[in-house]
């Protein structure tokens, strides 16, 4: 077993404990997807399915090379194809490998209510621990990239693990290894950022002035990064978010409301308790019973303001 000790976690969903920080020197990893080298061959998809023992249903042809049609509980990565005519009228076929971005500040983890169902390792990988997943779908709402998918079969959430099983024994993820053209690279985040810089320079020299790295700050950076020829317009690449961020609605829900609500409920209960010990119960007296009995016997008529 390649159990990672709890000390290898830096974040753990729905946990009230502070993550251990003693092991602070682990290198962060990153996957760099160089879209300009990608030929859309789907080797990554194939290798992902093979390694992770995933086999979604055989679909249909739906008017694109994209297959399956969407990410799914058994589709952890997916090539997306966009035919784009640039300003010069030349065609560009923008092909992007979609999947979990492994955010530094993961929205899924923030939204998850099940303790330990989503964890972030010290190396940056965000992993779903199926055993603890309750299938609520909050991660779906938390994710700024529309990545997690809930299985209808076992009601658990699934996404790319960055092959945490391979990485934990010192191997690269399956998609990285397979990629025929080296469009997917893997290494330390700093090395990948440096390498991306070289690639961007090359792209600029080939006329892609807006080439750049996609490592969105809004989610604290990601451990899956893209080199884009048009980094000024990420949405050209089949809707890659231009400015991804955890939705403010989710931030509010998982931020301020959580403690306020618990405090509010607790306050109400405590207020009740103190009311009890200060004011005390409201009890009826013998006199009330007697008055009532008299009234029932017709010995007393109601005051005018006592009539309805």
């Amino acid at each position, binding site marked *: 077993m390649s159990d990672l000790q709890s000390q290898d976690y830096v974040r753990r969903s729905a946990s009230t404990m502070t993550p251990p920080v003693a092991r602070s020197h682990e290198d962060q990893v990153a996957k760099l997807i160089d879209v300009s080298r990608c030929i859309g061959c789907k080797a990554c998809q194939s290798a992902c399915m093979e390694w992770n023992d995933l086999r979604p249903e055989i679909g249909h042809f739906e008017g694109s090379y994209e297959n399956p049609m969407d990410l799914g509980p058994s589709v952890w990565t997916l090539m997306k194809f966009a035919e784009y005519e640039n300003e010069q009228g030349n065609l560009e076929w923008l092909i992007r490998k979609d999947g979990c971005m492994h955010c530094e500040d993961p929205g899924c983890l923030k939204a998850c209510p099940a303790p330990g169902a989503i964890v972030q390792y010290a190396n940056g990988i965000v992993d779903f621990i199926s055993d603890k997943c309750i299938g609520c779908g909050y991660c779906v709402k938390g994710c700024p990239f529309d990545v997690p998918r809930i299985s209808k079969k076992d009601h658990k959430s699934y996404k790319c693990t960055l092959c945490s099983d391979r990485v934990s024994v010192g191997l690269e993820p399956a998609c990285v290894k397979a990629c025929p053209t080296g469009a997917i690279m893997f290494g330390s985040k700093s090395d990948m950022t440096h390498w991306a810089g070289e690639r961007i320079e090359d792209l600029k020299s080939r006329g892609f002035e807006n080439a750049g790295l996609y490592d969105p700050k809004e989610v604290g950076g990601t451990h899956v990064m893209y080199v884009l020829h048009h980094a000024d317009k990420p949405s050209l690449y089949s809707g890659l978010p231009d400015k991804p961020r955890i939705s403010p609605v989710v931030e509010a*829900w998982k931020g301020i409301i959580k403690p306020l609500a618990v405090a509010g409920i607790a306050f109400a209960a405590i207020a009740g308790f103190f009311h009890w010990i200060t004011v005390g119960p409201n009890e009826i007296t013998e006199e009330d019973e007697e008055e009532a009995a008299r009234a029932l016997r017709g010995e007393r008529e109601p005051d005018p303001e006592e009539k309805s």
Partner: protein
Amino acid sequence: MTRPKYAITRYTTANRINHWINAGLFVLLLLSGLSMFHPMLFFLSGLFGGGQWARAAHPWFGVFFMLSWIGMIIQFWRVNLPAREDIAWSKAIVQVVTNDDEHVPPIGRNNSGQKAVFWAMTLLIPVLFLTGLLIWEVYFGEATSIGVQRVAVLIHSLAAIAAILVWVAHVYAAIWIRNSVRSMTQGYVTPGWAWHHHRKWFWDLASGQRDKTTPRKHP
């Protein structure tokens, strides 16, 4: 259980069954819902056999709760209609909470606090139900966009907190006003209780205007 001779029926058997189904479901919803709301309370999911079960059961509790609440509306909407006396009673809220009942104006079957509980729940429960449907992953996960679901889950949790606060008030009031609990468990109050807390209602009964719960005229 013995029922005093001159007891006044405040809640019929149907009222009480409905209420306690309601109450039970509310507690189940509260426990399962809170378990998914705050990590500190996740342990509550253990009551349902774990997180998966709590997650699966919660929406079904909600569906039955909605149905049950419709029953409550049918049975109680009329007695919770606002009346002029509610204003006076509300003005005397300080006297109410300090047990200074002498200075609280007489009221009918329900005071406006009770009415507020009823109408608050009647508003919140459908909101919870509808937003709950939107985020019911198993059946409606793909029915709406993620953006809609994000808003739905926010509204759902805000409404739930509001409902819980209303519920806390309701439960505490039932404990605070002694013998209220009995009225909902055994269905009756003593004439003195009715006299003390709901004098207008008492006189209505005494004058025979409310047939079903009319106490015997003469002991």
